[in-house]
């Protein structure tokens, strides 16, 4: 593994006439936690989704472990994707399977893991997110917070090298945000490389190594959490941070 897990060069993305991402550059090093913040419509989610090619970049390169994802065939892309876990705003658990099966599907089908081994891993991971008693429940019977913890466990079941979080707490009731952030903090502590699009400034402050501020399709500022929240350089960032602090 190279030190730079993810390297983005001159990435841009257009939807029709709309340019969503403009000349994005950045690197994520092994073990780093990057939080991406910014006003809505800034292109944060699109940027994150370009990292595992859920969105196909219009131009530029996205390198994962030294391989440019924009120039690999379908098979290679699948291989690379299984090394990146992703957690979505709307959980996206498979409603037609139990929690346990949600965790076991990809290890069995993609990693060719045995049924028994996959089950062992799954139960272990459920314990880690505090939901071992929900193994046989269906997702619809879980609360939002529980569902998101299962979704994190599902991504972890593939033993990924990077975890991508797309506003993981935005769809949650306030009282459930904490339990999900707790799991994410644990992950960060254990050294997982993470890119997190979030509005949780507290989380960004306490966990991130770097905070990237995005607006209008550009990354306008990259700095440490302390600098970003105490003394932002960019005017847009200043304005954004100011509004957030006011709101608190």
């Amino acid at each position, binding site marked *: 593994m190279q030190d730079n897990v993810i390297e983005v060069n001159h990435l841009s993305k257009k939807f029709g006439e709309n340019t969503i991402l403009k000349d994005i550059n950045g690197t994520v090093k092994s073990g780093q936690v990057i939080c991406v913040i910014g006003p809505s419509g800034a292109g944060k989610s699109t940027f994150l989704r370009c990292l*595992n090619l*859920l969105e196909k970049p219009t131009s530029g390169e996205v390198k994962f472990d030294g391989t440019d994802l924009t120039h690999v065939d379908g098979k290679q892309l*699948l*291989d690379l*994707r*299984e090394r*990146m*876990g*992703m957690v*979505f705003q*709307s959980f*996206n*658990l*498979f*409603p*037609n*399977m139990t929690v346990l099966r949600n965790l076991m*599907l*990809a290890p069995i*089908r*993609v990693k060719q893991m045995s049924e028994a081994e996959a089950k062992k891993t799954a139960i272990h991971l459920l314990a880690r997110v505090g939901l071992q008693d929900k193994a046989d429940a*269906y*997702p*619809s*019977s879980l609360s939002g917070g529980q569902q998101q913890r299962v*979704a994190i466990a*599902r*991504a972890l079941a*593939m033993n990924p090298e990077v975890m*991508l979080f797309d506003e993981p707490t935005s769809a949650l009731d306030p009282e459930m945000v904490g339990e999900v952030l707790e799991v994410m903090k644990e992950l960060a502590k254990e050294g997982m490389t993470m890119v997190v699009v979030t509005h949780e400034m507290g989380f960004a402050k306490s966990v991130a190594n770097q905070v990237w501020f995005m607006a209008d399709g550009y990354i306008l500022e990259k700095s440490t959490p302390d600098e970003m929240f105490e003394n932002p350089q960019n005017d847009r960032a200043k304005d954004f941070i100011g509004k957030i602090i006011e709101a608190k």
Partner: protein
Amino acid sequence: MEKKVKAIIQVIIMFVTLLTVGAIASQASAADNSLQKVKQRGELIMVTSPDYPPYEFQVNKGGKSRIVGMDIDVAKKVAKDLGVKLVIKSMNFDSLLVAIQTGKADMAIGGINPTNERRQSVDFSDIYYSGGQSFLINAKDVNKFKSVKNLRGAKIGAQTGTLQYGLAKKRIPGATVKGMDKSTDLVLALKTNKIDALGIEKPSAEAYVKNDPTLKMIPSGYHLNKNDVGAAIAFKKGSNSLVNAVNKSIVQIKKQHLTDKYLASAGKYMKVNTVNTSMFHYWTYFAKGVEYTILISLVATFFGVLIGVILALMRFSKQKLFRGLAISYTEFIRGTPLMVQVMFVYFGIGVVINIPALISGMIAVSLNSGAYVAEIIRGGINSVEKGQTEAAESLGLTKGDMMRYVILPQAFKNIWPALGNEFISLIKESSIVSIIGVTDLIYQLNIVRADTYRGVMPIFVAMVLYFLMTFLLTRLLNYYEGKMKHAG
């Protein structure tokens, strides 16, 4: 612009397919080896429409059904003279001539009048019987319709595609002519005053009058060319050797006045039928019909879903060709009636490969259902949230695994009610296969009606049976729907 090109390509694909199939279907027959073929096979295959007593009808003896009648005796005599076994296939009257043209049978017999129009498409034997034409009327109208002159301006019924139909149109001034497929339906129409009179061959009319006191007969008074009134056996064009051989038997039949004997025995059979017209007496008929209806529906459901899934996946393929094929198929099947498709598979494709009627029916209904199921499934796949695809992709699942484990199970759950609807209509719509002689419930219904001279009761029984089938299926579908709901 691109859309236009696509549409044009689709239309071209469709026409090429049609032309190819059409070309195969219209292949001219080779030299005449008709007699040789029958002798080699050791079987003479005839088609008839056994709902026309006393010419041909079914008799129910000890729960077993047999086709009997004057025509059957004539055919037996012909087969015996040729030294071969007689095989009887039954079918709608409308389909008889098509059946011999497409080689489904060697000859068609069924009180067929060798009119000039028919002679253009098939060959005929000599006339073996001349019965004359007549009209059936309700007994209560005896004073109103004393003779054929009183029928001016009346509503007259006749079997579609028969001589009687053409004659009523041409010779009865001001008459409205109503055509139906089955003489049993026509008699029922007469008895329920939908029509005033029914144009029918004299022996048939006599049979009805004998068995039903509410009916009366009046002579047609037509002056007709002898060729137009007699009954003859129809053969595929160019079957001279077979026609000549059959004519030899007909000469004997006429010389020995065998038809009188045949009619007498037919009359006896008809009495057997009407001794017990209780529906319970005919339960084996209905049971067999239900069995075939269920069989066809099950097979068509299975293959329909299979075809539907494949077509739906083709619609989501990256290959333009697959998408185009799937779209063309669906549009074509949805744009043509099931009845035509059934006839096409049996008669049309039958020119190239001889498929039995039951299999043809199953194929046609499956192909048809597949197109509808495909659209339902496509809707189902579209109804699955995009996030599901993204989650599956982000886990590194292949497209195939994603469909199999994530998308399709959810799609099926969403479309279950619509799919259930399709299965239920399959049970009902499969009844169309009776036109090619598949012994499903509708077919059996018609036979019971022809046998018993009871118009409404058999219809009621069939209605109840269809309802029971769909009702049970609905319960079953609901049960599974509940189960799926439980599973999240």
